[in-house]
C-alpha cells in the first residue's frame, strides 16, 4: 500500500463512529466518507453523488452488470442482449455468463483483433442490428493480462448514439491511465490495484442510470448498496486514488521505461519469444510474453525459485492452469497461450529488478523448454 493510504487507514482505525449514525462520532465518520467521495469524484471527473462504495472490483462489476441488466429488462422485456468483449476479466465474464444461464440473457461476444482491441466496426454493426433488444454493453478500459487499452471514447460514443448503457471495468486503468469517468455510464475500480487496501472499491455510476441493487438492508449508498460503510478503508481508498492520479504521469513514464527495457532485452536475448498485446496503447506496467516450447507454470516455478514473482492466466477450481481466455480470444493457439507469462511492474520496480530478470531468464527458459519436451 502507498504510505498515504496506510496513514489515512491507520488514522481512521483509531476512531469510532458509524457513518450512518446521527450522533457526533457518526457525523465525524460521515464527513470522512463524504470527503473521500468528493476527492475520488474529483480525481475521475465524476460528481460525488456518482461514487458508490463497494467491497472491490468484483462487486462493482457484478453490481453494474446484474443491476443494469435487471433494471433495463424491467423497463423493456425485449432487452435481453448483452454485448461483451471476450477479453474481459472473470469479474465481468462470469456475471454475464450467469445472466445468460439463469436470467434469459443472450451474450453477444464482440470481435477483438490480434492485439485484443474491440473491433469498432463490428460493435457498430451489433448496436445497429436491433438497439431496442440490448440491455447493456461491457468493455474493460485496459486489459489486466496483456495491457491493451481499449478505444473507450469511441466505444462510448457508439453506445451513447444507440442509447445503450456502457459499463467499463476500470480496475486496471484508474491510477495508471487518464480515466474520465464522465465518458461512460458506469466504471468499476478497486483499491488494491492502485496502492490502496484490499477489500474496498467503488462503482462510479452516471446520474440517471438505474440499477437494481444486489444487496438490500440499511439503504446506504443511495439504496444501491446497503451495508455499513468501512470508513478507514474508504478514507484509505480516497488517499490512494488521489496520490495515484497525482503522480500518474511521472510514475507511468518510469514504469514504461523499465517495461520497454525488459521487453527489448528479453526479445533480443532469447529466441522464440513473442509479445502479446498492444505495444503502443497499453498499460505501462504490463508485459505479456509467449515462450515457444515452454509450459507457463514451469517458467513460473523456476522464476519463483529465483525470487521473481510473475503470473500466468487463470486456473480452474482445482487449481489446474488453463490457457488464458484473453490470449485465446486474441487468436493464439492453446499451446502458445499455455507458454505465456505476464510480468507486472509497479512503482516499486527498479532497474535492478529488470537486470536480474534479464540475467536469469535465458537459462530458465532453456530449462523449461527441456522440461516441456520431457513428455
Amino acid at each position: 500500500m502507498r504510505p498515504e493510504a496506510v496513514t489515512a487507514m491507520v488514522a481512521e482505525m483509531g476512531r469510532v463512529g458509524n457513518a450512518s449514525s446521527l450522533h457526533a462520532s457518526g457525523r465525524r465518520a460521515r464527513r470522512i466518507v463524504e470527503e473521500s467521495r468528493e476527492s475520488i469524484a474529483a480525481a475521475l471527473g465524476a460528481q460525488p453523488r456518482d461514487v458508490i462504495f463497494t467491497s472491490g472490483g468484483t462487486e462493482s462489476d457484478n453490481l453494474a452488470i446484474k443491476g443494469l441488466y435487471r433494471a433495463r429488462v424491467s423497463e423493456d422485456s425485449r432487452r435481453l442482449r448483452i454485448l461483451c468483449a471476450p477479453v474481459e476479466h472473470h469479474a465481468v465474464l462470469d456475471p454475464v455468463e450467469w445472466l445468460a444461464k439463469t436470467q434469459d440473457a443472450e451474450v453477444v461476444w464482440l470481435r477483438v483483433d490480434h492485439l485484443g482491441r474491440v473491433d469498432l466496426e463490428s460493435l457498430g454493426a451489433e448496436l445497429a442490428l436491433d438497439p431496442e433488444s440490448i440491455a447493456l454493453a461491457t468493455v474493460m478500459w485496459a486489459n489486466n493480462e496483456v495491457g491493451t487499452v481499449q478505444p473507450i471514447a469511441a466505444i462510448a460514443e457508439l453506445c451513447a448514439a444507440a442509447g445503450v448503457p456502457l459499463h467499463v471495468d476500470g480496475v486496471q486503468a484508474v491510477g495508471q491511465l487518464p480515466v474520465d469517468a464522465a465518458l461512460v455510464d458506469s466504471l468499476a475500480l478497486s483499491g488494491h490495484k492502485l496502492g490502496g487496501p484490499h477489500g474496498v472499491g467503488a462503482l462510479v455510476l452516471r446520474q440517471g442510470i438505474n440499477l437494481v441493487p444486489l444487496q438490500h438492508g440499511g439503504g446506504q449508498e443511495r439504496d444501491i448498496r446497503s451495508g455499513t460503510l468501512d470508513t478507514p478503508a474508504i478514507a484509505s481508498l480516497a488517499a490512494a486514488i488521489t496520490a495515484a492520479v497525482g503522480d500518474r504521469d511521472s510514475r507511468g513514464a518510469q514504469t514504461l521505461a523499465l517495461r520497454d527495457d525488459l521487453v527489448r532485452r528479453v526479445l533480443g536475448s532469447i529466441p522464440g519469444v513473442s509479445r502479446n498485446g498492444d505495444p503502443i496503447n497499453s498499460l505501462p506496467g504490463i508485459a505479456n510474453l509467449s515462450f515457444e516450447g515452454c509450459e507457463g507454470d514451469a517458467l513460473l516455478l523456476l522464476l519463483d525459485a529465483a525470487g521473481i514473482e510473475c503470473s500466468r492466466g487463470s486456473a480452474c477450481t482445482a487449481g489446474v492452469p488453463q490457457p488464458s481466455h484473453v490470449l485465446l480470444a486474441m487468436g493464439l493457439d492453446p499451446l502458445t497461450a499455455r507458454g505465456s507469462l505476464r510480468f507486472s511492474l509497479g512503482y516499486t520496480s527498479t532497474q535492478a529488478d529488470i537486470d536480474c530478470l534479464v540475467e536469469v531468464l535465458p537459462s530458465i527458459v532453456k530449462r523449461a523448454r527441456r522440461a516441456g519436451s520431457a513428455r
Partner: protein
Amino acid sequence: MSPAAPLRIIAALSGGVDSAVAAARAVDAGHEVVAIHLALSRSPAAERNGSRGCCTVEDSHDARRIADVLGIPFYIWDLSERFQEEVIDDFVAEYAAGRTPNPCLRCNEKIKFTAVLDRALALGFDAVCTGHYARIVDSENGRELHRAVDPGKDQSYVLAVLNEQQLASAMFPLGDTHKDEVRAEAARRGLLVADKPDSHDICFVADGDTSGWLHSRLGDAPGEIVDAVSGEPLGQHDGAFAFTVGQRRGLGLGRPAPDGARRYVIEVDTASSTVLVGPPTLLDVDLIYGDKARWSGPAITGVTAARVQVRAHGDTVPADVDVLGDGVVALLGESLRGVAAGQAMVMYDGTRVIGSATITRATRQ
C-alpha cells in the same frame, strides 16, 4: 538441521497426512522443497466421500494449505491426460483382456516416477519425495528398496516396479515410521489433515463399484458361467471382464454346488466370454509365470531362493525364482490360492525387494 549437500526436491502432496509429513521431513532435513499436487482428473469431484479416492478439489485445497503451513511453494501439475492414457485406459484394457490390473502400481510406475520425475529432473530438481511407506537403503551393493517398518502400511509391493534409475531419484521419508506416529507427528506440526482418513479403493472409480464402472465403459458382453469340473453351464453373466480369479461374491448363481461348497471364479476367458467357477482347491497354484521383469537392484542370475508376494498386503511364500526371457518363473515352496493374471509378483530377500514382474499365468506343477 542442514545436510552436507541439500537437494532440490519435488514433494508430491496428495492432500493427505502421509505426503504432508514426508514433505515436512524433507524441509526439516534442510532440502529445498517445492510442493506439487497432481491433478489427475479433468472433472474432479468437489468433496471427498469418506475414505474413497483422492484428487478432489477439497484435496487440492488441503495440499495447498499444507504447503502454506510448511512455507514452501506450491504448484498444481496437470497430469490428467497422462493418467487417462497410462493408468485408466490401461486399467480398462487389462480387465477387457480378462486380467486384474493394479492401477496404484501403474500410477507409481508411469505417473509419479516417470512423468513427474522426468519433469522434475528436467527442471533441475534432484528427487521426488512421496509419502509412501517403504525404505530406500544405500548399501555397499548400491541403492536398495526395502519394506517399511510398519507391516500394516508397507507399500513396497506397489513400488517394486521402480527400476534402479527411478529409485536413485526417489525419497520416501516415512519408511522407518509407524502410521500412528505419522499421525501424531502431523498433529504436532499443526497439519490439519492429521485425522483425515486413509484413502483406499481406486481413486478414479468414485463410488467404489468397479464392476459397474467397467460396464459403463465396456458395455455388456453376456456369456455363461460354467462349472470348471463338470463343464455344466450354471448361469449367465453380462461381462466376463468384470470377474476376477478368486472372486466368490456376486456370481449370482441360484443353486449351491452339489457338495454345498462355495464356488469361486477359477478362470476368466473374455475371448469366449466364459467364467469358470469351482471349488477353492482349483485355485491352488505353485508355478507362476510373469513378464516385464523389473529389478530394484542387480537382476538375479540363475535359480534364486526368494519370498514371493502376489497381492498388495498379501502374505509371502518361499519360492525358487529364475529369469525366463524378459520375465521370471517362480516355483513356490507352498501353494497359493487365487492368483490373478495382471497382478504383480514381487520377489523379496528378507525385507529387500529383488524385483517384480506382471503375472501372466499361474498353474500347478
